[in-house]
């Protein structure tokens, strides 16, 4: 058995432990069905030793195989029980099966590589759809459309009535009586300043008083947020004597 050339080895790049094993078998001209397990394990470990510096992901795959090899080696070195020997499978059997399987796909991958090279010169055309085709609009048959949807004129009437109802409901009936509805824009910052202005000179104020006449939802929300903000800065404190009762705001300034 020749000693392996370490330098040559380092330059080799293997796709994994099986690739490395196949290389070792090939290089030593070992019989794949009768692998000298002691020798191959020795050579394999020598390679793995050099891998030390590499990243752990690569290493772990190689180490798993190393332990498999050592396990096979130890099984083969154990004294055999003469009587059961015939039934006992060769511990190398599974490894051989895996090596052959891997070899098959490696062979196939080389074939594929050639096929890819050959096929690479084929050009597939982009679509060239004539304008007339692109712009074509299928004529519609309104009769069929109505028939398929099962809609009737009275159903259309109902739809319209529902829409009217929805439209009426959408307009706030109370406010709509005041004429035009203007969109209010209330900024939190502005409201904070206003609240402090309103509180000036007061020991405490009622939330409702603070709102005054502007009881829109938006104003209620922004005013409440302004109070919370001001409380955070220590300008005021709020309390509520009973659930859902008045909110009283005490000035801390």
């Amino acid at each position, binding site marked *: 058995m020749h000693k392996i050339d370490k330098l040559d080895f380092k330059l080799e790049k293997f796709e994994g432990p099986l690739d490395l094993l196949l290389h070792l078998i090939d290089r030593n001209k070992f019989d794949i069905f009768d692998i000298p397990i002691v020798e191959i394990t020795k050579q394999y470990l020598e390679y793995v030793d050099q891998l030390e510096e590499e990243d752990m992901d690569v290493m772990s795959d190689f180490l798993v195989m190393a332990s498999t090899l050592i396990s096979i080696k130890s099984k083969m070195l154990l004294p055999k029980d003469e009587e059961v020997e015939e039934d006992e499978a060769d511990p190398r059997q599974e490894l051989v099966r895996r090596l052959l399987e891997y070899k098959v796909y490696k062979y196939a991958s080389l074939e594929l590589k050639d096929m890819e090279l050959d096929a690479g010169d084929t050009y597939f055309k982009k679509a060239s759809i004539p304008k007339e085709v692109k712009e074509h609009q299928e004529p519609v048959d309104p009769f069929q459309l109505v028939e398929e949807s099962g809609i009737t004129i009275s159903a259309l009437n109902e739809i319209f009535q529902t*829409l009217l*109802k929805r439209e009426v409901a959408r307009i706030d009936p109370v406010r709509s009586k005041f004429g035009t509805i203007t969109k209010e824009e209330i900024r939190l910052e502005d409201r904070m300043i206003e609240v402090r202005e309103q509180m000036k000179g007061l020991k405490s104020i009622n939330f409702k008083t603070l709102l005054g006449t502007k009881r829109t939802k938006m104003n209620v929300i922004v005013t409440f947020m302004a109070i919370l903000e001001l409380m955070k800065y220590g300008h005021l404190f709020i309390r509520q004597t009973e659930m859902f009762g008045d909110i009283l705001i005490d000035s801390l300034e």
Partner: protein
Amino acid sequence: MDTIKCKAAIEAVLFATGSAVEKNILKNVIVKEGEQLSDKTFKEAVESLLEDYSSEERGIRLIELNGKLQLCTKNEYYDALIQLVNAPEKRTLTDVLLETLSIVAYKQPVTRAEVEKIRGVSCAHAINRLVDFNFITEVGRLDAPGHPILFGTTDDFLRAFGISSMDDLPDISPDKMADFQKQAEEEARIKVET
């Protein structure tokens, strides 16, 4: 380079580009290094190709225009292509379309903006579809800034819904409208009270 190889090369290049290619450019790109291609051979190849493509069993046409050559689909197969490319999108009257249609039917002549006011959402797409389906059509322009289009229903609409005139549209009674209004106000009041 012989005529046969030259024909094949021209075909391959025209197929790949899909667009019109100047004959002299074509001639230049198909010649391989160290090869010769005479004007005569090239001309023969083009003529032979033109003849081949004129055959009835071809679905592609080779057209010569202003010294350029181009492959394109024969017009008579556009129908087949339409079926494949414009995968027939299932046309149905969706809720959106029906809502829009009902508004146009009852409020006509009506602008898109008015329809949108009633529906509360934009319906440019629905309007366009209904025009495509020929249920509604432009019936005039509103005398207002921008002169927006006024839409109304078509005869196809009447026929499709089996009515002979707009008078046959089921009524929306004024009472009903008042009911809606009252109902909405009551709902609002209840909310305020609670």
